[in-house]
């Protein structure tokens, strides 16, 4: 990543683009837009032993894997040809809060003191990458959706279980940030 880079796109540009995924997925293939089921399909493809939850025809859902393949390409294209500024323009209160629990001045997309292959066995790296990843996979399957499938598609279709899910996602994040972080990462 070079030192040049533009400012972040504002929310009123990014939000509507993301929101359009819902009608476009319906129009293109009558699909209910969501990302976390990609993790299930990968397990259904790769797992040598299959409990009933993984016995289904994932090929019918291959659009979902094409979508995440495209998302990886999109991340690559943007990071290489239209990179963001290396120092994110964060609120100084966030920077100060993070410094108090041992994170250096923010740079790039993730704190390098936790998200690096060399950190996987440190308490911080293990907690944030391994435990965090496990919770994302387990939690989204148990909840049957994530921020896309519940909080955007589900809310747009006015399904009340998705509102319950959204409140729970946020409550979980608040508990982790305000209770566990200050307590574990000190």
């Amino acid at each position, binding site marked *: 990543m070079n030192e040049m880079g533009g400012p*972040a796109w504002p929310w*009123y540009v*990014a*939000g509507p683009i993301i929101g359009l995924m*819902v*009608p476009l997925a319906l129009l*293109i293939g*009558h699909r209910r837009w969501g*990302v*976390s089921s990609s*993790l299930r399909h990968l*397990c259904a493809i790769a*797992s040598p032993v299959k*409990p009933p939850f993984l016995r289904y025809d994932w090929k019918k859902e291959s*659009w*979902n894997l*094409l*979508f*995440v393949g*495209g*998302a990886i*390409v*999109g*991340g690559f*294209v*943007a*990071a290489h040809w*239209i990179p963001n500024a290396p120092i994110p323009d964060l*609120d100084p209160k*966030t920077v100060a809060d993070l410094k108090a629990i041992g994170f250096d001045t923010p740079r790039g*997309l*993730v704190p390098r003191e936790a998200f*690096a292959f060399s950190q996987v066995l440190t308490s911080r790296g293990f907690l*944030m*990458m*391994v*435990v*965090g*990843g*496990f*919770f*994302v*996979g*387990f*939690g*989204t399957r*148990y909840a049957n*959706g994530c*921020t896309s499938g519940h909080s*955007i598609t589900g809310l*747009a*279709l006015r399904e009340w279980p998705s509102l*319950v*899910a959204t409140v*729970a*996602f946020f*409550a*979980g994040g608040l508990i*982790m*940030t305000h209770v566990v972080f200050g307590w574990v990462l000190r």
Partner: protein
Amino acid sequence: MRNTAFLLLGVIFGVTLYKAEIISWYRIQEMFRFHSFHMYGVMGSAVATAMISVAVLSLRMPELRSAPRRPFQHGVWIGGLVFGFGWALTGACPGPLWVHIGAGTTAMLIAIASALLGVLVYAYMDHKLPH
């Protein structure tokens, strides 16, 4: 043709998540600490855009009203809380996990591998969990 369209949709999604710093671990912290409107604006305007466009579409395509529904089960809130813990820890929901790989945060492969393990563990115990 349809496949290409979904691939292209993914590319647009990936570029947007990177450019608006939605995949930034720091932005998620800023959101959970209520220090910035950015992520709330993203989510709010995404839901509003989706809701309005689905309402407009369903005037022309009444079959959309019969789109598959997601019923309530207790996993919605129990699993939802678990996902919320993971969201704050990794600073990423499943979409951003994938975009990170393209954007060069290759260590997120560890989080993805762990997420796949989480799905596998869920697959083995789903009949024992309250639903």
